[in-house]
């Protein structure tokens, strides 16, 4: 009779204490500073920084199998003539190229295969193949996040999600989460439209900077309301409601509802 009671009391105390702490926490989180400065974008290399000849050598060794020995493209990979420095820089720095997935699948972010100097050389070589967008130099502006939010929701959120956690797009393509994307990479993606993504080059530079600023804001600013469970709405919320919410309550029900007269034999 005496055995389980202390455990029950402990459970009750723990739940009450956790509830009380929980009730106080988000207030503090919500009032947390929103004026903290945004993370400055790391400046990427300009095409002119690299050595075209050194880049050509690496290109022949690592890229030419698919993209052809003069970057004209083959059955395995698209032509790189005129894709510009922005495309080469984006694909190499997000590790999407060199591609090592199975043919026909989407290139995904992974650690870059080359060091910074090699990437500069390769970018210089690809940029020299034709005329294309240069590597953008986005300027982060905390006063532009509202404009950026508006543009992001209208243009980016339909695939990447309102909180930039990624989403499924038709045809097996996935819009990646943007948590690791640097300001330069976000701006590059808007200019070149990698993979299934449309090209958003029609947006003005001001608008592009606003979007980049908002993505940086999402990455760096505290998310009010407590632990974020995906930020993708009711699916994880329903899951947590059932498993953690009703699950914990069912444990309580089993403890409270057991026959306290002793074993039923």
């Amino acid at each position, binding site marked *: 009779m005496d055995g389980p009671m202390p455990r029950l009391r402990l459970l009750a105390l723990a739940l009450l204490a956790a509830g009380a702490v929980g009730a106080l926490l988000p207030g503090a989180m919500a009032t947390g500073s929103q004026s903290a400065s945004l993370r400055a974008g790391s400046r990427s290399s300009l095409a002119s920084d690299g050595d075209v000849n050194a880049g050509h050598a690496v290109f022949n060794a690592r890229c030419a199998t698919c993209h052809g020995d003069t970057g004209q493209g083959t059955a395995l990979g698209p032509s790189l003539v005129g894709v510009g420095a922005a495309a080469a820089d984006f694909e190499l720095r997000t590790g999407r190229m060199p591609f090592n997935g199975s043919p026909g699948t989407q290139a995904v972010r992974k650690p870059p295969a080359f060091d910074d100097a090699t990437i500069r050389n390769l970018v210089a070589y690809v940029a020299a193949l034709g005329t294309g967008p240069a590597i953008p130099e986005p300027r982060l502006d905390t006063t532009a996040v509202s404009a950026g939010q508006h543009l992001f929701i209208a243009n980016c959120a339909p695939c990447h999600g309102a909180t930039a956690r990624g989403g499924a797009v038709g045809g097996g393509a996935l819009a990646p989460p943007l948590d690791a994307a640097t300001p330069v990479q976000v701006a590059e993606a808007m200019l070149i439209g990698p993979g299934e993504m449309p090209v958003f080059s029609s947006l003005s530079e001001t608008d592009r900077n606003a979007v980049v600023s908002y993505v940086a804001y999402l990455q760096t600013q505290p998310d009010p309301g407590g632990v974020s469970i995906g930020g993708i709405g009711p699916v994880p919320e329903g899951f947590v409601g059932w498993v953690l919410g009703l699950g914990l309550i069912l444990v309580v029900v089993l403890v409270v*509802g057991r026959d306290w007269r002793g074993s039923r034999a």
Partner: protein
Amino acid sequence: MAAEPMLTWIDERLGLAAWARAGLRKVFPDHWSFLLGEVALFCLVVLVLTGVFLTLFYVPDATSVTYSGPWAPLRGQSVSAAFDSVMRLSFEVRAGLVMRQIHHWAALVFVAAIVVHLLRIFFTGAFRRPREINWLVGIGLLLLALAMGITGYSLPDDLLSGTGLRVIYSVVIAIPFIGPYLAFLVFGGEFPTTEIVSRLFVFHVMLLPALLIGGVLVHLAILVRQKHSQYALAGATEENVVGRAFWPSQVFKSTGLAILTAAVLALLGGLIQINPIWAYGPFDATTVSSPAQPDWYAGWLDGALRLFPPIEITALGITIPSPFIPGVLLPGIAFGVMTLWPFLEAWATGDHAEHQLLDGPRERPLRTAFGVAGLLVFVILTLAGGNDVVALVFAVPVEAMTNILRVAIVAVPLLGFGITYRICRELYDRREATGERRGSVRLRRTAAGGFEEIEPD
């Protein structure tokens, strides 16, 4: 003892002592599964308390205002006064966000508790005569809870909930003949309208809660009047109720359960983010957010819309728009079957007798199999409602996911029906053969390394 003269004074005028004495002695069967309905009740209490708080600050008005609060990404944007008030509630009202989050989590757990309570009633046959009326009241309460959830979900007037309203509008206008009239009547014109938010508000804070709380009182009054059903445990017969009195045993159990239920909801509301409307932004008719889902209890309705092939039937000059079948007909049939189940079962089995003793699920293989099949339909439709999120999690193309679920919605319930029926039969026949319920067997290891069974004492 100072209270006694006062109580006597009251009793001399109202004569409640005899009534209270009987009430305090009401017998509650000693089984945890009888507490599931209470969990729903306590969630409702939390919902009312937090809901009243939210109502103090919410503005049911679709008029455009410029947001000027502390959330930088929305500052200067044009939002509705309703959205603005929920933003103020979240970031400027003291304890506003935690109240909003507790309210939302409590809503999710409330409907979940109702569903689990419903499953207990169904699988143990507690709906049989004489309890058919309370089954009907319970189904009514479930419908009201869903209506509460859907109207409440839409009140913040954010992009996600606006997307939900658009889906509801599209389903309503798909009803043949009356659809467009009904949609205009409900929404006050063609979507999007400025009237809808204030209308939803009236339903959510006045009409539906009044019906829901009234229904709960009827539900409980009928329970007290009819007394509890009970499991066929030691001493229980069709003529008695075995258990413990309301005072003191059940009062303490229920109070503890109420406090702990509230604690779990406070835990969720305080620690885990729910419905971050500041990230979705205000509703804008030209924009759609993705992934877009309703709260879990409406996910099966959305899932049916997503799974059903885009077929538009035109016969005799009448077009039945494609959302009508999955969006109106299917839920109508589902709730129709659920509502009529006690009568359907009585008609099919010819069993019209009173039942105070509950069935074990294995004792009624057909009912249990039907229940499991229905549950599987619900689960698969719910998965379909989140098909894009499921596709993302499992890295499967959305189209493949939809086709897999289209097959599953037919195959899995059938399979579940067969397997459940088979298992129940096996368990039941085995028990029939031995003539009694077989408890656990105690073994003793012998010195030689073998095992021998210890005879039960």
